[in-house]
């Protein structure tokens, strides 16, 4: 059973990329990086949900299991590259328009700068991506090669 937290993070990041970046910032919609992450996501999702569906039907063809645990090796870095390049391309427009930002002074004494939020989001890929990638690699070794993984103790 997949973790609620991990899936939650992934779904949120997809919603973020689609609505808060691509939909809201028109100038970057023609960037090649958008095609990059859309293709990576599409192929990944078709594979992943086929895997889940056939697993539930108790009739899983080996090639779907193979695809689910091998495609990600390429698709995951490609998708991340597409996402990061898109956010990077959006930065100048965000800075210029001040979109999604709250400035001082205001009644609730708070501020939010979407530009810096995006910079921090990009930086967060650095610790997060390797963790998720190596998690998938470990799952791959366990499922495809029957390796017994001794979990490091907390």
């Amino acid at each position: 059973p997949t973790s609620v937290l991990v899936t939650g993070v992934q779904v949120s990041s997809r919603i973020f990329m689609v609505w808060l970046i691509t939909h809201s910032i028109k100038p970057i919609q023609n960037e090649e990086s958008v095609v990059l992450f859309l293709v990576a996501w599409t192929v990944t999702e078709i594979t992943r949900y086929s895997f889940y569906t056939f697993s539930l039907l108790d009739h899983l063809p080996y090639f779907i299991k193979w695809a689910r645990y091998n495609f990600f090796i390429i698709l995951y870095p490609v998708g991340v590259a597409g996402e990061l390049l898109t956010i990077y391309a959006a930065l100048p427009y965000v800075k210029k328009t001040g979109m999604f930002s709250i400035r001082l002074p205001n009644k609730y004494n708070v501020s939010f700068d979407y530009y810096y939020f995006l910079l921090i989001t990009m930086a967060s890929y650095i610790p997060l991506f390797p963790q998720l990638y190596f998690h998938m690699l470990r799952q791959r070794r366990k499922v495809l090669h029957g390796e017994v993984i001794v979990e490091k103790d907390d």
Partner: protein
Amino acid sequence: MKHYEVEILDAKTREKLCFLDKVEPHATIAEIKNLFTKPHPQWYPARQSLRLDPKGKSLKDEDILQKLPVGTTATLYFRDLGAQISWVTVFLTEYAGPLFIYLLFYFRVPFIYGHKYDFTSSRHTVVHLACICHSFHYVKRLLETLFVHRFSHGTMPLRNIFKNCTYYWGFAAWMAYYINHPLYTPPTYGAQQVKLALAIFVICQLGNFSIHMALRDLRPAGSKTRKIPYPTKNPFTWLFLLVSCPNYTYEVGSWIGFAIMTQCLPVALFSLVGFTQMTIWAKGKHRSYLKEFRDYPPLRMPIIPFLL
């Protein structure tokens, strides 16, 4: 008198780590932990978890060897809890930070706001009041840590100090930045709002302190006894009639008061996060009380009267 033999195995690898012979039957787990430290000095007692079953619960320091379900050769399983740090150290560090950090913003130390604001003072009374309240709150916490609280556990995992300090210090800086900002906007309903909110804050601080004193008096110094808390002559403790953890109730109340007083959204968010965590703790404490005491008052809720 018959002596016991105790062998200690690693809970994961089942490797024999230590063999103790001629152990007194009335020896406590604490004493056994001290004996175990000698051949393994890196595993000081605070980081040892000894249990009868590799996947079972940890034995308590006060447990006596001959009262455990073991033969005269007892097998105990050891688990390393990791580097430990004392609760007192963690509390002092995590509370001293906000006290100091808030003042940096209050005095508008250079490099926080524009240079023309360096060391200037706010013209809003509520900003000065807020500094007094915030500082008082953390001084109170520091003094309670040193003189009031009686901790059940001596230590916690070392990584907690980094997690906790990030939380307290981070939020303190975030709140202090806005409250002490040159562009700070005072509350919409002016002095009335500030006075009401200040009253809530003060009452809840007194309430919180009263509960801490009542809890302290439940337990003699150096002991780890647990008893059901009851209301005392102090009216602030009458909240025990309705909740298991009125200290948390009052704490949330204090921060709601501070949020209304400063009308600052980051303060409201800090209150919300704190409330979430304290609710989890209160529910846990409430559950332990119910499990341990058959006659626990049924009217009580964990943290919010009648509701939560």
